[in-house]
């Protein structure tokens, strides 16, 4: 479904992505691991068109590298950024509405679905989103992206800084996403979550993919963890 070949990206003069290769199949949950600053978020942003990509990004057989972000979103890719980018002056409901690509869009997800999974969003639907807690904002960001009915969703560090009960909620939502046959690219620090829910995983180091395999293969290669993940 998604095929990334020799992807390069720069911030000014720093060469952040140095030839990333990865692919995601239909309905797969793929985890992208790595230490901070190795280029995991940049990989997502380059796929989404938020950072200028060099190389090939093929989605459903079509090269989408270089398209503007809104066009890529319309192809069916969704992104949940690490720093959330909620719209603080708008209400929770308005944030969700902006997730829809137009006012009439109907997809796999309805407002009721979101409110059922996260009753707190229902209770606060008319409150300014800027007043939500960090965990609530994370839920809102994920739900907002899903309202656009993506076929592939890239989720960047969804559990960072969250309390344990919120981490559990996020985990449930990712399972629910997978249950609806949506592919997931999950950038995650917490190994336990990544190993539990991912079908396959990639490890990044120095702007490249340094390991690729199933969670089992990863467990069988403890030196990968030592070399590329442990601080």
């Amino acid at each position: 479904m998604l095929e990334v070949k020799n992807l390069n990206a720069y911030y000014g003069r720093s060469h952040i992505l140095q030839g990333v290769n990865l692919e995601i199949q239909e309905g797969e949950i793929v985890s992208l691991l790595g230490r901070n600053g190795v280029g995991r978020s940049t990989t997502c942003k380059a796929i989404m068109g938020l950072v200028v990509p060099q190389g090939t990004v093929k989605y459903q057989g079509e090269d989408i590298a270089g398209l503007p972000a809104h066009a890529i979103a319309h192809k069916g890719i969704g992104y949940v950024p690490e720093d959330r980018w909620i719209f603080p002056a708008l209400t929770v409901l308005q944030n969700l509405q902006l997730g829809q690509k137009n006012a009439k869009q109907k997809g796999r997800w309805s407002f009721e679905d979101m409110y059922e999974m996260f009753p707190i969003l229902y209770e606060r639907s008319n409150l300014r989103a800027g007043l939500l807690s960090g965990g609530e904002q994370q839920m809102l960001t994920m739900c907002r992206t899903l309202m656009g009915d993506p076929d592939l969703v890239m989720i960047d560090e969804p559990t960072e800084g969250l309390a344990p009960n919120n981490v559990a909620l996020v985990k449930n939502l990712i399972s629910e996403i997978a249950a609806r046959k949506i592919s997931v690219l999950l950038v995650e620090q917490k190994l336990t979550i990544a190993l539990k829910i991912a079908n396959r995983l990639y490890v990044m180091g120095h702007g490249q993919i340094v390991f690729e395999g199933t969670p089992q293969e990863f467990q069988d290669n403890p030196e990968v963890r030592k070399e590329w993940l442990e601080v």
Partner: protein
Amino acid sequence: MEFYVISLLNSLVFGMLLFMLSSGLTLIFGMMGVLNFAHASFYMLGAYLGYQVSVFIGFWPALVIAPILVGIIGAGIERYGLRTVHKYGHVAELLFTFGLAFMIEELILLIWGRVALNYQVPASLDFTIFKLFESDFPAYRVFMLVVSVTMFVALYLMLTRTRTGIIIQAALTHAEGVGMLGHNVPRVFMIVFGGGSALAGLAGVIGGNYLVTSPSMAILLGPIVFVVIVVGGMGSLTGALIASLLIAALQTFAVGYDYSLVDLLTLFNIELGSEPLFPDLWRIKIENTGPLLPYLLMVVMLIFRPKGIMGERES
């Protein structure tokens, strides 16, 4: 008492005119991060086009047609000029709008010449609407107030009740975030730039005959509009409204006070000698400082509250 009531009304009229300019400028800045130096030039263009259209077919059609023309010109400049420059960063964009301001001014000089236009208040509005104490209050000022308040209400409803308005509000904080959700941000930029230009044009049409329509009108009003959006808080509409009214009041009221430092000293029974140091400084009257006060307010604001009255970011 008469002075206060009349000054209050006048500052309301001038304040709402300022808001018509600053609302567009602050939205453009909040969204695109560009301080549009040519914004007051669109106001000037509105006045000139308003004059020209009203010569041909009258003031009332001009009131509608001229702002639309200015809006189309603004949208075109965004689409085919600013958007191309955008990828080279904010400095390039700033220089672009700077050059644009000069180009519009030169264009106006070429077409209409250097002398102020005989752009008059329409005859149908040229009468006294009421007498306050001993002063006549012109109907045209009431009309200006009606137009600007209507525009404010329309803008408010558009931004809070329509989907486009909500997208614009969202793009004020996170343009990238709006784009990745599938909304065409460049198109939203064009709408805002065109809309902001149209509002400036409208201000020109109704302000050009109230003030003066001359090639220097952009340079006269432009800096004040910048002060308004800095004091109000860049990107904040409510801030722009408050600052517009505040600065208009400051300028209007200052005109009515003819006290100077000499008067202050006399109050404390201090006599200035016949040849004091800087003799002129002591005799400057508050009414002469009117043009200076907005800038003083801006400087003080930048020192003590750099994000402005309602702003959420440092300016």
